[in-house]
């Protein structure tokens, strides 16, 4: 009797142990350790590198910290069990937040904030600098040509080329429309190179200019009246959007943001747009773009090609801007000449590119401050890249 009870108890405990072991095994199969692939590890390292660059060297920390951390979030390996965890699983929290990127409504809101924080005075006081902003858009189309030769189709090439505009929101907006499958790589590439402009641009600026050119002193910009500042966003919108209606979401929001800033009667709106609103959208945009780089979707040969093309496009844009200024100077009178070191600012990485012009300029003449002059092409670059995006969307969309 006792033996049978003991045997029963032993059998029960054995099956319970088996049940426990099975559960532990199931649990283990769900952990990140069981599902990790080399791809995940690589992407986690990339995320950590972004965070390191942002904190250690302060390379665009506002972008690289959210993106870097987003990469960590997006690359925690897990078993796809329909739990709605990943960014690509419909209905998951990350997927809902990602819709702003996918549907392309974060970028126009960022542009609203950019408009509300940008002072176009430098451009208004010296409008010829707008042409420098236009010249730097060669970076977009240079990369477009090379991407075509590398086997990308025209719409993919257009989406990749826009990296050369050095404008993250524009790159996301256009790639979400033209090549949604490449958006992650394009966005990360655009933001990475925007953060790396202090490394990419100066060597080419030095290479393409002479010492005499680097010390050119430009006329200080005149004071711009408020009326001119109010007219600028209105006329700017009407002219550019009539020419390229497909750029309307970006241009409309950019100029609207600027009008609420300059009108002087909508201070609260302007402060919200350039403060809490742009901060919220930047956080959501950065974290979701980062999380969209899930190793399984992101680590492809195309992504590597896109990174290469991104770097090239920045180089082309920088060179085109500098060379255009040199060419433009041939037609300008002495005293009105433009320092070619502001040519790099035609890319729309505001205000980093302008800051680089200033820093490189100061290396050769410690009393030659180029920052305000460089802000002209810099903000013209924002308009130029939005126009270029509109053209690409109109042609290839």
């Amino acid at each position, binding site marked *: 009797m006792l033996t049978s009870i003991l045997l029963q108890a032993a059998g029960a405990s054995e099956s319970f142990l088996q049940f426990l072991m099975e559960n532990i095994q199931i649990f283990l199969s769900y952990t990140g350790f069981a599902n990790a692939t080399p791809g995940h590890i690589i992407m986690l390292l990339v995320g950590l590198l972004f965070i390191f660059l942002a904190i250690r060297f302060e390379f665009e920390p506002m972008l690289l910290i959210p993106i870097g951390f987003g990469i960590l979030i997006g690359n925690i390996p897990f078993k796809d069990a329909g739990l709605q965890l990943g960014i690509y699983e419909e209905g998951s929290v990350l997927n809902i937040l990602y819709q702003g990127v996918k549907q392309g409504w974060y970028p126009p809101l960022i542009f609203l904030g950019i408009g509300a924080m940008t002072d176009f005075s430098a451009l208004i006081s010296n409008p010829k600098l707008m042409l420098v902003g236009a010249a730097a858009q060669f970076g977009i189309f240079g990369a477009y040509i090379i991407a075509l030769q590398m086997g990308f189709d025209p719409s993919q090439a257009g989406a990749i080329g826009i990296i050369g505009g050095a404008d993250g929101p524009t790159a996301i907006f256009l790639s979400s429309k033209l090549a949604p499958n490449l958006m992650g790589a394009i966005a990360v590439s655009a933001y990475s190179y925007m953060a790396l402009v202090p490394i990419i641009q100066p060597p080419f600026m030095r290479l393409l200019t002479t010492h005499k050119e680097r010390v050119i002193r430009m006329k200080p910009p005149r004071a711009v009246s408020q009326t001119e500042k109010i007219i600028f966003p209105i006329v700017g919108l009407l002219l550019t959007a009539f020419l390229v209606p497909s750029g309307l979401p970006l241009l409309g929001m950019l100029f609207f943001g600027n009008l609420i800033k300059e009108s002087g009667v909508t201070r609260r709106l302007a402060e919200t747009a350039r403060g809490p609103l742009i901060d919220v959208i930047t956080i959501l945009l950065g974290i979701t773009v980062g999380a969209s780089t899930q190793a399984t979707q992101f680590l492809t040969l195309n992504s590597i090609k896109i990174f290469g093309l991104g770097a090239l496009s920045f180089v082309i844009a920088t060179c085109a801007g500098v060379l255009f200024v040199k060419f433009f100077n041939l037609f300008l009178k002495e005293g009105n000449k433009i320092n070619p070191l502001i040519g790099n600012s035609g890319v729309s990485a505001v205000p980093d590119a302008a800051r680089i012009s200033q820093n490189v300029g100061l290396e050769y003449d410690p009393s030659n401050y180029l920052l305000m002059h460089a802000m002209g092409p810099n903000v013209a670059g924002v308009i130029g890249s939005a126009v270029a995006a509109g053209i690409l969307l109109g*042609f290839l969309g």
Partner: protein
Amino acid sequence: MTNKKIGVLLLLMALFSFGAQAQLTTSVKINEVLVVNEDNFVDDYGKRHPWIELFNNSAGTVDLRGCYLTDIDWKGKKPDVKKMYMIPKGDVLTKIPPRQHTLFWADNEPTRGTFHVNFTLSPDKDNYIALYDADGTTLIDEIVIPAGQRADVSYGLDVDGSGKWGTLSKVTPSTNNVTLDSNEKIENFQRNDSWGIGMTVTAMAVVFLGLLILFLVFKQIGNIAINASKRNAQKAAGEGTTLAANAGQESGEIFAAIATALYEMSDDNHDIENTVLTIRKVQRSYSPWSSKIYTLRQSPNKK
């Protein structure tokens, strides 16, 4: 003031309703019609009848509820809504998504549901079909299908929502009349501009043109502003006074320097002392305020 506000409100409402109209029923087009249905699409009852396809030619969802379909030409007369087929209200299926279609059965059996109209079509005569807005008087679209239509061959627009009417090469109920199986734009670029030079030249020309126009416009605006400030400076200095050549074009740096000087001046020469409360740290480590002895209960004195 109140009148002004009401005026602005009315203007906004008028603009809104005008803008909204573009996305409403006026965007709907009669798109394709099959008069003789022998071996084609069947309705929910498994029957074959002539059908009329409507197409929403806009980028917004359009609700057809309350609109009218008719085979009577009311031109020159006041339309009688009782003789027309009113598309019933309260059916969610009457909403047509952007650039999508819906199908009505011309079987003269309106009791069979929302999409069965009160008239039918015949190949022996010209068939007039019209779509009226919910007011019963605004004509949205109309078409006359010529007599002699062949069986299972539809008559429709060669491009959905636009183009020309004619006999279609294939019958496409509730789908596009033109089936897009390739991206023509992209193929064009691949065929004619494989190097991307054409795109680059065109796009850069547009970018330059856009910013060049902005440059020219703002150069003029800048000149006007400079002249205006010169006039103001002249007025302030008094007539007959000679002004500097760069009057009205002073750099922002000058104003910044003046503003800074004024600020510093006003900051230093103040009559009222700042009411600043400074809390200095007590140097002594002991203070009766921090002494714990006063917060402790004293032991009873047993004498």
